[in-house]
């Protein structure tokens, strides 16, 4: 075992010296290391095969759990600052070790299972909710050819996996034999199922435009090829930014619809009815404590990351960002700043917006939630699909005004149709 180890170390030294010299595309460092490791594992037989696969998935889980820890800290600090207070600042500098403290606390807490609960269902629910959360991450193109599995039907697979969440939430609600969690579970099914429709329809627009469901192809399509290959650095930066789908009229509408239904899919603020703490205590999570609760918490956040990742991939140009070609390298596709920097920047910006929404907006009622999905988001998504179709076949000077006009008009019509007669917001208060 000793000699293989120093052989291994010697190889690294040799490889580094070979490559460092001519580092022509900086953002591919990780890809180079991964490719080299994979060739190294190749000659280790079965162990190497397992290690190669693990190498693709374990960093994914580690990175996104790290993001989860960072987001809990970000959320509590952000909400604190919105509410004119500091937020956690006792555990570590600026409270940075707070997620670790929460994790330890969750581990030490006793895991109470209600006596008449359905033990198996109660135990399996957090396990099952972890599956869609983690597998959803596989299709996110984090950087240029840094992707766990670049398969052709990535989007289809993602939305199929995403629907398992409602199964596990209801299992949690039903199994904990508690009236409030039953109501919470029922609400979760109604909400998650009815928000799948606008979610998928607003994603279909991008597939229609790009022509393929492979996420890395979609991201590639969001660059203006001619500008990127030109040699003026300013043009290269703009080429990678102005190509995003969000700067198209149908793209902006699609992004807004996708973001709002992503809020609902991830049970985030205005739609957090399944665990509405002022009405049904903690919804389906009422009877969970200790590490099972932490698992639910982790799965909810990683699920949010997955859906936000899809939002950035489809509309905000995944890993594209104002990036230039390093002058010293001759490879036309090289980039100076690695792709995953832009990807995680966009994810945390969208997460910040979600935290900001959570700090401001109250909750919808269950019938308004349903009405919002079926009578507001769905028609807009369908109209957006039609407009995108027409836009594709029209010249740009004709397509832009047409689509902007149609989208704004349809938004106004749908808003007026949805105004319920009970609500007349211009109230007059007489003074006696």
């Amino acid at each position, binding site marked *: 075992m000793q000699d293989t180890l120093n052989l291994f170390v010697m190889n690294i030294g040799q490889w580094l010296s070979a490559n460092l010299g001519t580092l022509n595309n900086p953002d591919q460092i990780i890809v180079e290391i991964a490719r080299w490791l994979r060739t190294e594992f190749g000659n280790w037989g079965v162990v190497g095969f397992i290690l190669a696969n693990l190498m693709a998935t374990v960093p994914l889980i580690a990175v996104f759990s790290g993001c989860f820890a960072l987001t809990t800290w970000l959320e509590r600090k952000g*909400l604190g600052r*919105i*509410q*004119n*207070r500091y937020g956690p600042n006792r555990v570590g500098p600026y409270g940075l070790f707070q997620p670790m403290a929460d994790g330890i606390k969750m581990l030490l807490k006793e895991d109470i299972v209600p006596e008449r609960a359905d033990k198996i269902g109660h135990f399996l629910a957090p396990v099952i909710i972890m599956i869609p959360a983690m597998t959803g991450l596989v299709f996110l193109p984090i950087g240029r050819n840094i992707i766990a599995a670049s398969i052709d039907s990535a989007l289809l697979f993602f939305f199929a996996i995403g629907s398992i969440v409602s199964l596990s939430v209801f299992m949690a609600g039903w199994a904990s034999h508690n*009236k*409030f969690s*039953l*109501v919470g579970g029922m609400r979760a099914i109604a909400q998650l199922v009815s928000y799948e429709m606008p979610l998928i329809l607003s994603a279909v627009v991008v597939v229609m435009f790009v022509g393929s469901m492979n996420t890395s192809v979609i991201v590639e399509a969001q660059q203006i090829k001619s500008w990127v290959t030109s040699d003026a650095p300013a043009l290269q930066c703009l080429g990678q930014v102005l190509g995003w789908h969000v700067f198209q009229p149908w793209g902006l509408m699609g992004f807004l619809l996708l973001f709002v239904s992503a809020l609902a899919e991830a049970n985030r*603020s*205005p739609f*957090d009815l399944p665990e*509405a*703490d*002022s*009405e*049904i*205590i903690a919804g389906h999570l009422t009877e969970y404590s200790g590490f099972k609760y932490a698992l639910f918490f982790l799965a909810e956040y990683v699920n949010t990351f997955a859906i936000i990742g899809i939002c950035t991939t489809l509309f905000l140009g995944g890993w594209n960002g104002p990036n230039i070609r390093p002058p010293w390298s001759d490879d036309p596709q090289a980039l100076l700043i690695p792709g995953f920097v832009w990807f995680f920047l966009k994810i945390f910006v969208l997460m910040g917006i979600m935290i900001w929404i*959570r*700090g*401001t*907006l*109250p*909750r*919808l*009622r*269950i*019938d*308004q939630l349903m009405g919002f999905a079926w009578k507001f988001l769905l028609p807009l998504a369908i109209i957006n699909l039609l407009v995108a179709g027409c836009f594709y076949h029209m010249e740009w000077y004709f397509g832009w005004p047409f689509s902007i006009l149609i989208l704004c008009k349809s938004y106004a019509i749908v808003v007026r149709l949805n105004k*319920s007669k*009970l*609500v*007349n*917001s211009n*109230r*007059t*208060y*007489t*003074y*006696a």
Partner: protein
Amino acid sequence: MNTSTGYAPRNYKIVKHKDKTLLEVAMGPHHPSTHGVFRMDVKLDGETIIDLIPYFGYLHRNHEKLAEDMTYFSTMPYTDRLDYLCSMTNNWAYALTVEKLANISVPERAEYIRVIIGELTRLVNHMLLVGFYINDLGAIGTPLLYALREREKILDLFEWASGARMMCNYLRFGGIREDVSDEWLASCNKLVDAFPYFLDEYDQLLTGNEIVISRSQGVGVLSKELAINAGITGPMLRASGVNYDLRKTDSYSIYDRFNFRVPLGQFGDCYDRFMLRLLEMRESITILKQALRDIPKGEIQSKVPPVLKPKPGEAYGRIESPKGELGFYLVSDGSVNPYRYRVRPPSLINLTLLRDLCIGHKLADTIIIFGSIDIVLGEVDR
């Protein structure tokens, strides 16, 4: 105009559920948004409420029996614990009734300080209601913490004047216990000038908010006749459009010297009750400005025998407490202890129509309707 509204006929018909089993949920004493220890047994068909039975008594300390064994003066600190959010208005109602019973006069400066303290307590109570109402709607903490931030400044003033933030025990029969210094009046002035900014921030944050509008308009509509007949008083009655404010009708103490307006609602639903509190806060600011402007110098308590023994008789004194008409009915038989000491709790009587308002609405609406009624369990259960 015989307004006998019998109990059985209600404005919604009860659907007899023979086939379907109803989900009976006890929104029990231990529930995040029952503002204290209060239980509602609710029969649910899906999310709609079919029947709702309120249960009281979890915080019952038999305050009235205690008062019968103690002297008039020793009961004063216990009146703080009735509606523990606005302790000084309870003291004021009790002091007013004892002054009516033993006809004790109150000097000018004490009356002005009582009005200032009363209106500050009204601000504290309405802020808390608005904060908790939005918190029940689902905005986790932000509007509530803005309200609590402003409440802290007023509680500091209370601590400065009376020594305690909530359990102030500050009023005495015939005046108040300690005089307030001029710096106190100056900082009160500063607070009153800065307060409308908080109200504007609240208006911008909430009153236009589509989710708040769609969730509270048209929910828990209370008709004018039913409200009057059910003895509802305070902002909940005025939200249904009835012009009945004891500060104007009774004009007790020196309220007739201040000109202020009484806002009235139009539909009497949760949104009107919520908006009423915001508008009443602005009126309290005008009263505070006038009171702080012309507060005279002078002594703060008239001569009262240390152990009060009022001659046999009875008195019913009432004030416009932030929650409604808070009345005290005292019967004295000439001895040191009151023979009968009765508190008319506005919170309990405003809850009479909880069942009528909630039936037919969703589960989430009962929390909103219950929150908009603004009750404190200390006063409900006494």
